[in-house]
Every structure is written in structure tokens, then in C-alpha cells.
């Protein structure tokens, strides 16, 4: 039998950490654009975001298996999902957009991208928070 609870716990941390890291790299590269390694930081953020999107597939698949396909639920379980699905959709969309556009971003595109990265980070952090609450409260039954 596959221990989905342990697999989900192990897999979810990669997209969370990589997305937050990618967002941080983007902001540092924009704020300190005169740094000699600002361009490298943008490359690092691109690859971190791409790996985060790929890793999120594993996290989602193990989560679906763990919850037996219950994609909404109630209490903390429901709150976890209310943040997970927009975060997952946004993460995939941002990674695809970034891979298509790469360095050819307009000023407006960059601003929009950074705002959406912040939003995705917030959603992922909230999903992670309620996921942790689920672990501590054993399902957060209301």
C-alpha cells in the first residue's frame, strides 16, 4: 500500500519552497537590478518556478490520492483546498507564461507578473498553513 500521507507531506514542500524562492529572486533582481548577478537571479527564478510547477503535479496527485478525491471538504480541509486550487492553477499559468516569454518582458508585463507571483506565494502559503493545521488537528472537523 502506498503511504500517500507521507508522500504528500514530502512532495508539497518542494513547490512551496521553490515558489517562494523564485518570488524572492525576482524581487531582488528587480530591486537590485544593477547587481552583477541580477540577470543570473532571473534565470534562477525561472528554473525554480518551472521546477515548482512540475513538483506541484506530484503534490496534487498525492493529495488527491490521500483525500480519496475529495477536492473541497469542510473546516480546515475545505480551507486548504480553497487556497490550493487557485494557487495550483496560478503557479502552472505563471510557469508556462514565464517559459514562453523568458527575458522579453515589458515593464507592464513584469509588474503584472510580480503581482501575480506575490498572489501565488500568498495562496500557496495559506494552503500550506491549513495543510499544517490539518496535520495537527487531524482533519479540522468543524
Amino acid at each position, binding site marked *: 500500500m502506498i503511504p500517500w*500521507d507521507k508522500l504528500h507531506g514530502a512532495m508539497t514542500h518542494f513547490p512551496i519552497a521553490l515558489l517562494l524562492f523564485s518570488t524572492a529572486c525576482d524581487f531582488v533582481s528587480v530591486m537590485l537590478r544593477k547587481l552583477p548577478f541580477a540577470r543570473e537571479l532571473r534565470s534562477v527564478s525561472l528554473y525554480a518556478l518551472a521546477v515548482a510547477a512540475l513538483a506541484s503535479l506530484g503534490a496534487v496527485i498525492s493529495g*488527491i*490520492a490521500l483525500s480519496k*478525491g475529495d477536492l473541497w471538504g469542510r473546516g480546515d480541509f475545505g480551507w486548504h483546498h480553497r487556497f490550493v486550487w487557485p494557487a495550483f492553477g496560478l503557479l502552472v499559468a*505563471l510557469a*508556462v507564461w514565464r517559459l514562453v516569454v523568458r527575458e*522579453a518582458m515589458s515593464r*507592464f508585463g513584469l509588474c503584472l507578473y510580480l503581482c501575480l507571483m506575490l498572489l501565488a506565494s500568498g495562496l500557496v502559503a495559506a494552503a500550506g498553513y491549513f495543510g499544517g493545521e*490539518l496535520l495537527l488537528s487531524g482533519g479540522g472537523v468543524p
Partner: protein
Amino acid sequence: MMTPLEIKGAMVAVITSAVILVATFTAGGFYRTRYETETQPGAKPLATENLAVKGRSYFLQSCAHCHGRDADGGEDAPSLLKLQISSAHMALVIHSGIKGEMPSFAKKYNEQDLAALVAYLKTLH
């Protein structure tokens, strides 16, 4: 404003994201329907009845001393009658426990045993 490449990228991104989300929800829905069918009272009368009987014996063995023999609650544990959560959620709570309140039964009961317990709890609705 956005460049043509950015607009093209945005369209590809939205379509990819939408396709992945639809596939995820379809797969999840399919999985859930299968699981709910297996643990739904009356869906497969004999199999589910046997499962619920087995679940009742597990319940008496591990849960009744806190939740009461009829699952109507005890001094330290709530009633389990008319639970409003899904089968998957019930299985998750039994599996993981509730920190400081209820122990985890992950080591004691495997997936089939949890399905039996859930099938029993659903008969209490």
C-alpha cells in the same frame, strides 16, 4: 501595455492551466465517486453491509470507549451521529488522529479497515 509575445504567452498559460485543472478535477471526481460508491450504504447491499458490520466491530474495539457504544458521544469525545463530512474526510481523521484529542489509527487499521469504519459511520446518518 503587453507585447504580442506576452499576450501569446498568457493565452498558452491560461489554456494549459485550465486543461490541467479540468483534468485534475475530473480525475478527483472519478476517484471520489468510486470511493463513495464503495462505502455508501445500499450501493452494494451485501458487500457494504458486511463492511459496516466489520466496521462496527472495529468501532467497538477502538472508538466506543470515548465516543460511546452507540457513537452518541462520551465525556471526552463528541457524538459521531449525523457527521457532515465526506467519507474521505472521515478516513483522514481516523488515519491521522487529532493532536492532543484523538490518537492516530494509522498503524492499527489499513485502508480496507478504514473503509469498513467509514462504512459503519455512514450507517449512523
